[in-house]
C-alpha cells in the first residue's frame, strides 16, 4: 500500500465510522456517486414519493440498495425492518432489479440472526439475489475511485514526491498550530518497548501513515535541536499528552489518530507537504511514547 492509498483509506475508514443514521446514507450516496457516476441513481432525485424502499439503484447491474445504519443492531428491531424493506422493494421496484443489497455500517459484520434472515429471503425469492454490504465491501467500491475524485472528497494526500521536498518550514508551520504549554516537570525517561503499532490495534493504513512519518521524524528531532528555544520539544510533547488523554477512552485508536491529525493539521485540506509534516510530527511523538499506549513488556 503506498502512502497516498494509506492516507485515503484511513480517511475513508474514519468517514465510515463517523457516519451514523442519515449521515451514513449521505456517505453511501457520495461513495457510489464517485464510484459509478451517472450509472448510480440515488433515491432522492426520484421525487417526493418518500422512501419507497429504495436507497439507490445501479442501473447497469440491476442492483437495488437498502441502507441500514442504526447505532446498534437490535434483533427485535432489525429483523422486521429488513423483512419490510425487502418486501416493499419487491413490490415497488421488482421489475427493475435482479439483486437486492442490504448496506449496513457494522464494522464487524452482521449478527448471525440477520444473516440467517437474508438467506431465507433469498431462498423464498428465486430470481433475486441478496447481498449484504459492510465496511469491506464498501472498501472495494472505494478503491475504484480515481485520484481526482479522492482529492475532491478528502483533499491532497502526502506523496513520495512530497517526502523528498519536506523541509523545516513545513515542520515549523505544523508546530506553530499546536498550542504550547509550560515546560512540564521532569518526565521519567523510559525505553520504548517494541510492537507499539500492534499494541494499539492500529489499522493497516494508519500503520503505513506512521511509517511514512517515522522516515521523516529525524527532521523534527533536528528542528528541535536547532530551535532557539531548547524546551520547545518538551512543551509540544506536553500538549500532545494532554490532547491524547482527552481523547483516550472516548474513541478507538484509529479514530484517535484521525482526531489528532485534524488537531495537528487543521481541518483545511493542505498541500501534500503539509499533510506529510503532520505525519512526521505525529510519528515523532508516537515513537517517544508521548501519545498512544506502550506495548506491554511481554510483547517485545
Amino acid at each position, binding site marked *: 500500500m503506498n502512502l497516498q492509498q494509506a492516507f485515503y483509506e484511513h480517511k475513508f475508514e474514519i468517514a465510515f465510522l463517523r457516519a451514523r443514521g442519515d449521515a451514513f446514507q449521505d456517505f453511501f450516496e457520495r461513495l457510489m456517486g464517485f464510484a459509478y457516476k451517472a450509472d448510480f441513481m440515488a433515491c432522492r432525485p426520484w421525487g417526493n414519493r418518500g422512501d419507497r424502499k429504495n436507497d439507490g439503484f445501479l442501473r447497469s447491474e440491476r442492483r437495488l440498495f437498502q441502507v441500514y445504519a442504526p447505532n446498534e443492531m437490535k434483533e427485535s428491531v432489525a429483523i422486521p425492518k429488513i423483512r419490510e424493506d425487502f418486501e416493499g422493494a419487491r413490490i415497488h421496484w421488482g421489475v427493475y432489479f435482479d439483486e437486492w443489497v442490504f448496506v449496513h455500517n457494522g464494522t464487524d459484520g452482521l449478527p448471525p440472526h440477520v444473516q440467517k434472515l437474508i438467506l431465507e429471503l433469498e431462498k423464498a425469492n428465486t430470481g433475486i439475489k441478496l447481498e449484504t454490504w459492510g465496511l469491506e465491501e464498501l472498501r472495494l467500491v472505494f478503491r475504484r475511485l480515481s485520484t481526482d475524485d479522492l482529492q475532491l472528497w478528502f483533499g491532497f494526500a502526502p506523496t513520495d514526491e512530497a517526502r523528498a521536498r519536506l523541509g523545516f518550514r513545513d515542520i515549523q508551520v505544523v508546530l506553530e498550530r499546536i498550542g504550547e504549554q509550560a515546560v512540564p516537570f521532569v518526565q521519567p525517561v523510559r525505553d520504548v518497548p517494541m510492537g507499539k503499532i500492534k499494541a494499539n490495534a492500529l489499522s493497516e493504513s494508519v500503520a503505513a501513515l506512521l511509517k511514512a512519518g517515522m522516515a521523516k521524524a529525524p527532521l523534527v528531532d533536528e528542528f528541535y*535541536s536547532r530551535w532557539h528555544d*531548547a524546551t520547545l520539544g518538551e512543551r509540544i510533547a506536553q500538549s500532545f499528552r494532554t490532547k491524547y488523554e482527552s481523547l483516550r477512552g472516548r474513541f478507538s485508536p484509529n479514530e484517535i489518530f484521525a482526531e489528532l491529525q485534524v488537531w495537528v493539521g487543521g481541518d483545511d485540506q493542505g498541500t501534500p507537504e503539509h499533510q506529510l509534516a503532520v505525519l512526521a510530527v505525529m510519528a515523532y511523538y508516537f515513537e517517544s511514547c508521548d501519545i498512544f499506549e506502550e506495548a506491554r513488556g511481554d510483547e517485545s
Partner: protein
Amino acid sequence: MILPSKHLSQDRALLTVGVGILQHLGQPKTVSAVWEELHRRGEEAQHSATPLKFDQFILALDLLFLMGAVQLDEGLLRRKKP
C-alpha cells in the same frame, strides 16, 4: 533544562554545557573570554549540529554559581577549589 530528556538532547542540557565551561577554567578568565572560546570551539566542531547559544551559556553559568562550582573574582571567573 538542567538534565537531558526525551526531547532535550544531552548537548543542550545545562549540566552538559557546565562541564564545557569548567573545562575552560583551568585558569581564571573573563566571562567574555570563556564564551568566545566555547563558541569558537562549537563552530569549529563540524559534527555539532547545535552550536551553543549565548542564553544557554548564561543559564549554565547561573547553574554553576548556584551549585557553587564557580565564583566571580574581580571580573574573572574561577573554579572554586574544594
